[in-house]
């Protein structure tokens, strides 16, 4: 594949890109004027509440809604008998979605505690809640299964026995999906290896916990079209899926994403929009839905729990010859992202180390637990927890320093990535060459920044027995989904030399509106203030798959650069006419078109003349970019921990994460991703875990009982940017928002081993788990 340098300014000197500019929505946020979905809800809106299942697995024999309907203020009660029965997936993926169509708006069967049973629509929240308690449901309780390995056994209850589901790998065995990818002769290489080492690791259900819960608002406009204002990462997929399950044409639906209060993947799901839209269509009135914080915990989309077994063949000199990962995945009761997340577990982690033979296999099991889904890292954090702990162990087993061992085997620029061909996102892969790699710089920066405080162990006081240790992990990730991601951008000229930039791309708080504006400004030779960014409105912005798969900067950014270049070239034509020279003769520098004779015309002047000169015209260009590549960003995290030997409490005392992002369009926002991932990763490593009763009910569905990091739980996280300048990316970008999550948990787990000599292969490293392991090991 041939790659040209994309969008790198000829004069090399970047004026807007690479600058720490305030976010375009920064002023409205700090003034309290930024508008989120709920802020648009009118006083007259009805509130809709979902009636949820108290049982993990049951068939609905009968629903009596008469009492609920009798409550004054109740407008509508919907059950599975009232809505179209169309199988779909809640996964907001590009069409055709690789996730099984195993979900219905409302069904006659419930598959986890909290599953949808009915919808109550009433004049306000209190009335809806009161009426929801009066919906009488007769259940036939079915045996439930909560362990994925149990679920795969013949004796297990079948969770998806409905005949009309589509795309399930083997419903009769509760297998949502199955993956097998292999290069080289693995068994032969294991035979030749001096050492074959195998370890098994376990990861947990981790919930996403955006500060803004899922919230959506639907109403019919004056022409009867359905308008959905919603907190989503995927406005165009929402439009398509909502139209389909409600049996209305896409042309009748408009989806708007206003500011959004955090997403991380959990808003790449149709959690509420289908029902809310249905209620608005049925009642003809505006309808509002918002999950409670409790529902946000059990009824959204946590990270897939996995059991991961790594087996590696290695020679005495430290060369890896064969590398295998076998995974059992718990997708919960529906298969949203059930094929692609586990694909990614292998495809993002296994290429990191060179080997002649590589195998990745995964079995994805349904259980009667909450539905897993897309969550920052998309399967890779689980893969890296296993791989990076395992490689730490393998290095020690052959008597090598783990850093030396990993460096020796790591992929580097110029290498092909053999497993990429076999393992795409739920389908065949693609050929991938590594063209940019800043892994060494990442290691250097992160390793030098950690453990230099000089603070001695036991700083907590004379009565604490503590030990300190440093651990690390390396990683790589991807940028976009090749052959799948498509993004559109429109640039429109105004007479004052400002430009409207219309993008389908979706800013989740990541700052994509800002960095896309910076790219357009750079190409057009104007300041960021001259670019008016409008995003994520299916009526007014071009198509974009949405914000996921670490694609926005690379994919949507490319569309923006292409559209801006087209506009700049048309303005060059305008300038050429005014200056009386050939367009090709004009140089473009610092916002001005310059003729060989020395005359020049500023782009703003050209903009004015394009609309108000002799040849009046609206210059406006749309560009579309189909991504065919997936260049990997790289990263390294070093962490220092203090382990309290008497309580098992682990504290991260120092942590540094360095990420090769290709190029940082806005370093502030890039650091925000790197540091934010580290904070989330510390939670994943130490405290965050959804706990369930023996009946499958979540036990810690509140912010008090499910611990995400507060300001007191975190050290001063150090985030470093490395720029390797990827040839295929606009201005050299790769990605940052997910790769930064990958190395955190294994770095901390390796640090705990380094501190105590005890290896714990299960997340999170809670005091209970650590203390049990320490006691068992006699520490």
């Amino acid at each position, binding site marked *: 594949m041939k790659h040209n340098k994309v969008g790198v300014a000829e004069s090399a000197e970047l004026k807007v890109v690479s600058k720490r500019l305030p976010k375009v929505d*920064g002023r409205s946020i700090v*003034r309290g004027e930024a508008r989120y979905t709920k*802020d648009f809800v009118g006083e007259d809106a009805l509130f809709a509440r979902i009636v949820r299942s108290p049982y993990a697995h049951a068939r609905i024999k009968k629903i009596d809604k008469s009492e609920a309907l009798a409550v004054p203020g109740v407008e509508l009660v919907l059950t599975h008998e009232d809505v179209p029965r169309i199988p779909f997936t809640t996964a907001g993926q590009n069409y055709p979605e690789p996730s099984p169509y195993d979900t219905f708006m409302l069904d006659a069967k419930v598959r986890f505690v909290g599953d949808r049973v009915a919808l109550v629509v009433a004049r306000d929240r209190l009335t809806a809640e009161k009426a929801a308690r009066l919906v009488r449901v007769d259940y036939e309780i079915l045996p439930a299964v909560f362990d994925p390995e149990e679920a795969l056994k013949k004796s297990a209850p079948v969770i998806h026995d409905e005949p009309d589901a589509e795309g399930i790998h083997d419903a009769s065995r509760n297998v949502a999906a199955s993956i097998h990818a292999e290069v080289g002769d693995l068994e032969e290489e294991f035979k030749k290896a001096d050492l074959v080492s195998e370890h098994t690791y376990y990861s947990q259900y981790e919930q996403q916990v955006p500060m803004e819960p899922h919230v959506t608002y639907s109403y019919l406009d004056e022409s009867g079209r359905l308008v959905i204002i919603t907190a989503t990462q995927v406005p165009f997929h929402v439009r398509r899926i909502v139209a389909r399950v409600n049996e209305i044409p896409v042309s009748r639906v408009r989806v708007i994403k206003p500011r959004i209060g955090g997403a991380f993947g959990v808003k790449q799901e149709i959690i509420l929009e289908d029902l809310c839209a249905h209620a608005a269509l049925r009642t003809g009135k505006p309808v509002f839905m918002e999950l409670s914080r409790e529902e946000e915990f059990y009824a959204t989309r946590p990270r897939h729990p996995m059991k991961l077994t790594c087996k590696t063949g290695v020679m005495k000199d430290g060369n890896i010859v064969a590398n295998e990962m076998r995974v059992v995945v718990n997708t919960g009761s529906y298969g949203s992202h059930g094929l692609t997340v586990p694909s990614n577990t292998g495809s993002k982690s296994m290429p990191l180390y060179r080997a002649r033979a590589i195998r990745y296999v995964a079995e994805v099991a349904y259980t009667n637990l909450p539905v897993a889904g897309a969550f920052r890292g998309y399967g890779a954090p689980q893969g890296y927890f296993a791989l990076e702990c395992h490689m730490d162990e393998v290095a020690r087993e052959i008597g090598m320093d783990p850093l030396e061992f990993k460096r020796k085997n790591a992929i580097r620029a110029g290498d092909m990535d053999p497993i990429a061909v076999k393992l795409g996102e739920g389908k065949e892969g693609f050929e991938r060459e590594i063209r940019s790699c800043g892994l060494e710089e990442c290691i250097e920066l992160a390793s030098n920044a950690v453990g230099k405080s000089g603070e001695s162990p036991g700083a907590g006081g004379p009565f604490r027995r503590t030990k300190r240790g440093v651990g690390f992990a390396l990683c790589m990730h991807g940028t976009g989904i090749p052959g799948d991601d498509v993004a559109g951008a429109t640039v429109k000229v105004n007479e004052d030399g400002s430009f409207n930039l219309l993008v389908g791309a979706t800013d989740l708080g990541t700052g994509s509106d800002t960095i896309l504006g910076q790219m357009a400004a750079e190409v057009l030779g104007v300041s960021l203030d001259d670019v008016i960014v409008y995003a994520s409105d299916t009526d007014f912005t071009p198509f974009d798959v949405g914000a996921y798969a670490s694609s926005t900067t690379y994919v949507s950014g490319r569309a923006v650069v292409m559209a801006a270049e087209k506009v700049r070239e048309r303005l060059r034509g305008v300038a050429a006419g005014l200056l009386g020279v050939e367009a090709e003769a004009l140089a473009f520098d610092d916002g001005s078109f310059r003729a060989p004779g020395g005359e020049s015309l500023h782009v703003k002047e050209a903009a004015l003349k394009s609309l108000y000169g002799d040849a009046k015209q609206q210059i406006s260009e749309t560009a579309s970019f189909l991504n065919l590549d997936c260049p990997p960003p790289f990263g390294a995290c070093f962490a220092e921990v203090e382990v309290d030997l008497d309580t098992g409490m682990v504290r991260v005392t120092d942590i540094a994460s360095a990420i090769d992002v290709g190029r940082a369009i806005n370093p502030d926002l890039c650091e925000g991703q790197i540091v934010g991932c580290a904070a989330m990763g510390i939670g994943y490593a130490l405290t965050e875990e959804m706990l369930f009763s023996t009946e499958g009910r979540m036990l810690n569905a509140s912010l008090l009982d499910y611990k995400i990091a507060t300001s007191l739980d975190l050290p001063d996280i150090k985030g470093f940017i490395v720029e390797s300048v990827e040839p295929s990316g606009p201005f050299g970008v790769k990605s940052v928002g997910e790769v930064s999550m990958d190395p955190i948990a294994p770095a901390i787990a390796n640090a705990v081993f380094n501190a105590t000599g005890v290896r714990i292969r299960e997340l999170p490293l809670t005091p209970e788990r650590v203390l049990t392991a320490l006691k068992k090991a006699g520490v």
Partner: protein
Amino acid sequence: LRIEITVNGKAFEVEAPAGETLVEVLRRLGFKSVKDGCYTGTCGGCTVILDDRPVASCIMLAAQADGSCITTLEGLADGDELHPVQQAFYEVNAPQCGFCSPGMMLTAVSLLRRNPEPTIEEIREAIAGNTCRCSGYVKVIEAIELAGKKMSEGGGR
């Protein structure tokens, strides 16, 4: 219940049902910067300054606020001129999604009024009730430090 509150210097008389919380009343009055992320006083998104101290307005009944003076984020700026805390949050790009920012900034204002030159530990302590899932707090703390410095050097309010 009929209650009287002053919000951002303006007096309001509102009719609030007995069970209505302060956050609901404030949002009903149009102060949409007050965010409700949990309704249980655990996320800090609904923080407002009530008679000089930060409170979680989702676990306070509107009736309990009768007669008090409340500041929301809308009340911080002086026209176009940002409060130093707002200016600092803006300059260092402290907000990511921005959902926790209103509560976080009001907590910071309240802290800096009590303690104009807080240490990093004191900042961490002060914002412990304002949960942020995006940032890891690094730029938030940097912004509060910067605002404190600016306010100590004059220009503070």
